[in-house]
């Protein structure tokens, strides 16, 4: 991490590392200045480093959640499973879902959003870089805090939906639910701060000429997601506070003997929880909407339709929450209304599938691993979408809800949709992020193992559910699993085998990562003949992203700089990526001051789990945590985002010294 940075092109003088004098806040902490080593990561405010750390954190929790899933499937491979007892099983499925939703898919989407939104819109960083770092640390501490419960008396055991009153102190006497509530609360702070940050970034910091309708589709979908987060997170915050007050301070919110209505929790949870589904899946929709055009060599079919359908999903997503409660006893009027709104939301979702398919149509398809994952998403998400339509029909849903049919449905949506999209993103953007190509050979195996494994795992769950196997049961019994070769026992076994095939696929991805890091091929500047702005800089990008902020004239700006249509309508390459980069470097801005690293986001975030631990176990600890938060906030407030001019020992200047300071936004 450098505090002062100049363009490092072949024409400018090479950047010289110069010691800097660090300013201090309160005279306590010297401003971090390391440009290498762990300190350059821990105290960074660079959106790219933060994005990578989000990704690494998410990948770690993906493995944790995956191991939990494997244990669940081991337990259910045979009747009356003995691998886990009822108590541990209940913790396992609760934590599997919580981990995958809050600690894998959301942070991984945040990783891509953090890394690529500024690059795609032609900005040098996000609007609030330190807030960005704070979000990362809050997520990491929240995730650790959530999982700490495993070692302190048992994890949460009420399911990720944590229905009251089963989550109350009587029915869940360990501290698991407390850790769960606080862990999510802290992760929620991360999401909220990230949402504000990225919305401001997109709305205020786009490159000249980049109107919203020229913005790359991934940035669009990420923007919709940030709005969903902005309004959904406070609702779960309220629910979690009520739960926490009940468990720790004797409040009565969900105490039926005091007259409470347990459906209050369900409404609060699902008003958050349904937008959450779109929060999980829209980023991946954005990713495949980038990947499909690149490898089809033609623009996204109906870009405005995809944008508006994404926004429509964002809006209608607020009006469907009660379809999770068709069996709760809402009364026929509510059920009918929510049934219809749920069908309504299928329309914009269908639009996306149509557009992706028509993007392929008439293209020149190049089946890279990223492309395979994207096409896999179209097919598998369609299955999940259609099974979703079957239970938008409320009467059918009363047969299907809380059975494995639902488990099948949302895994096709979340694994077939969200996760495959994220993997498409890994393979597509790896060269951009790390400057090396992931092995396509391993990638192909990775894809097929995951695709086959996921169909083996979740396909049979359709049958299991429709034939009456409920969810969340630590054992199933042969007495109810029917007869014949294809009885429910058979499908349970297939499902368990499939889960290990998926695991093998994921393992191959990790192998690919290690292999690429050791002896991967150095990525060419434009390995995929890509279309959007993030490819108009080096691999990996310089710290300040762009030497000169490009002026945008088209959707798919990069492609239109490379290709022109000749008089016959054929696309002719007029410029190479290297030439475009050189052009940019020649026009490089000088004296780009990037925001400086800071301790304060980390300090502030560190206070949060300490408060939480204190609330659960001992108030003085909570007070101590509060003091840390206050200290962090003051340190932050008094520290300039970019270190003062006097902190920059002037590097060996040469040539003319422009006084102009170029904006980093």
């Amino acid at each position: 991490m450098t505090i002062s940075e100049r363009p490092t092109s072949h024409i400018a003088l090479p950047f010289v590392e110069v010691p800097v004098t660090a300013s201090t806040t309160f005279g306590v902490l010297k401003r971090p200045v390391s440009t290498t080593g762990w300190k350059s990561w821990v105290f960074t405010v660079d959106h790219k480093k933060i994005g990578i750390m989000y990704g690494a954190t998410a990948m770690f929790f993906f493995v944790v959640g995956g191991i939990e899933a494997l244990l669940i499937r081991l337990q259910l491979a045979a009747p009356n499973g003995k691998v886990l007892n009822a108590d541990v099983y209940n913790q396992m499925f609760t934590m599997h879902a919580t981990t995958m939703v809050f600690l894998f898919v959301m942070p991984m989407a945040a990783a891509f959003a953090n890394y690529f939104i500024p690059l795609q819109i032609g900005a040098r960083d996000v609007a609030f870089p330190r807030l960005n770092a704070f979000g990362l640390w809050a997520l990491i501490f929240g995730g650790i805090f959530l999982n700490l419960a495993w070692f302190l008396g048992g994890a949460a055991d009420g399911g990720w939906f944590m229905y009251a009153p089963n989550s109350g102190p009587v029915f869940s006497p360990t501290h698991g639910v407390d850790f769960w509530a606080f862990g999510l609360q802290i992760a929620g702070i991360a999401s909220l701060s990230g949402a504000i940050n990225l919305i401001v970034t997109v709305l205020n910091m786009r490159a000249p000429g980049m109107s919203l309708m020229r913005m790359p589709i991934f940035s669009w979908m990420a923007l919709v997601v940030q709005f969903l987060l902005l309004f959904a997170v406070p609702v779960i915050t309220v629910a979690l506070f009520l739960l926490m007050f009940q468990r720790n301070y004797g409040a009565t919110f969900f105490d039926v003997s005091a007259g409470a209505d347990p459906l209050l929790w369900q409404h609060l949870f699902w008003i958050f929880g349904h937008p959450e589904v779109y929060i999980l899946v829209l980023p991946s929709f954005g990713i495949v909407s980038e990947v499909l055009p690149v490898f089809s060599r033609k623009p996204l079919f109906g870009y405005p339709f995809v944008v508006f359908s994404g926004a429509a999903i964002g809006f209608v997503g607020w009006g469907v929450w009660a379809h999770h409660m068709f069996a709760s006893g809402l009364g026929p009027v509510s059920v009918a209304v929510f049934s219809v709104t749920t069908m309504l939301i299928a329309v914009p979702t269908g639009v996306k599938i149509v557009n992706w398919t028509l993007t392929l149509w008439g293209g020149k398809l190049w089946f890279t691993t990223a492309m395979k994952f994207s096409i896999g998403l179209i097919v598998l998400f369609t299955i999940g979408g259609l099974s979703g339509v079957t239970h938008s029909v409320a009467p059918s849903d009363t047969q299907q809800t809380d059975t494995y049919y639902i488990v099948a449905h949302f895994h096709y949506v979340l694994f077939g949709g969200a996760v495959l999209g994220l993997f498409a993103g890994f393979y597509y953007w790896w060269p951009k992020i790390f400057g090396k190509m992931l092995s396509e050979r391993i990638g192909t195996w990775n894809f097929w193992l995951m695709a086959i494994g996921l169909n083996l795992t979740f396909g049979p769950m359709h049958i299991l559910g429709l034939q009456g196997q409920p969810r969340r049961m630590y054992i199933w019994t042969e007495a109810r699993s029917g007869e014949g070769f294809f009885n429910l026992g058979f499908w349970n076994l297939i499902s368990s085998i499939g889960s290990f095939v998926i695991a093998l696929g994921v393992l191959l991805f990790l192998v690919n990562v290690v292999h690429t890091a050791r002896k991967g091929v150095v990525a060419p500047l434009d390995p995929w003949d890509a279309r959007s702005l993030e490819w108009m800089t080096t691999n990996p990008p310089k710290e300040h992203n762009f030497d000169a902020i490009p002026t945008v004239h088209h959707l798919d700006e990069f492609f239109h700089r490379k290709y022109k249509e000749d008089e016959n309508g054929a696309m002719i390459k007029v410029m190479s990526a290297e030439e475009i980069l050189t052009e940019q470097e020649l026009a490089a801005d000088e004296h780009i001051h990037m925001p400086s690293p800071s301790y304060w986001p980390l300090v502030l975030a560190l206070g949060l789990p300490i408060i939480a631990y204190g609330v659960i176990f001992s108030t003085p600890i909570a007070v101590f945590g509060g003091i840390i938060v206050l200290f962090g906030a003051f340190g932050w407030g008094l520290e300039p985002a970019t270190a003062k001019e006097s902190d920059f020992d002037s590097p060996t200047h040469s040539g003319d010294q422009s006084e102009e300071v170029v904006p980093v936004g």
Partner: protein
Amino acid sequence: MADLAVDKDMSHSAHGSSTHGSSAGISNVKLGMWLFLGSECLLFGGLISTYMLYRGRVSQGPTPSQVFDIPFTSVSSFVLLMSSLTMVLAVSSAAKKDDRGTTLWLTVTALLGATFVGGQVYEFTAFKSEGLGFGTSLFSSSFYALTGFHGVHVTVGIIMLMAMVGIVQRGEFPGSKAETIEMIGLYWHFVDIVWIVIFTLIYLIPV
């Protein structure tokens, strides 16, 4: 809050930029604050809904009409509303770079806010002595949660105001003091408006 409001706006750290084309025409910090307040609406919305659902559910302990002292709360509400006025004066002094005026009005605003919080602490203590604990009934739980959350918001606002007084005195601050004070003002007005809603719903509309 403080962390958001004073985070340096990146596009504004640059002077005389002409390369920047596409923006919403409102500074990063201000846009961020508006978004945050939008999110806060949902937070209070959830708490208010909970209160409205539960306000009539008193299985034991006093009912709302037995504990509420409407004249007292009306006065403290008036005090809080007046603080919005003084906040406006602080913002305008800051815009005029009038440090003395700024300090004065920020201090007055903080004092008015503190009076309100003091009134709330008194009210809670009185309710408690009348047998209305946090866990007494659904009414009490949702009442304390809602008004308590609001009180915490006012307290955070007071801390920000006091910190700003210190900063104005010290004279040295990264970024624009006027803009930061404007942000605190936005937050302060929001908290006041929320109180108007809460006061109306809790105290003025009978169960």
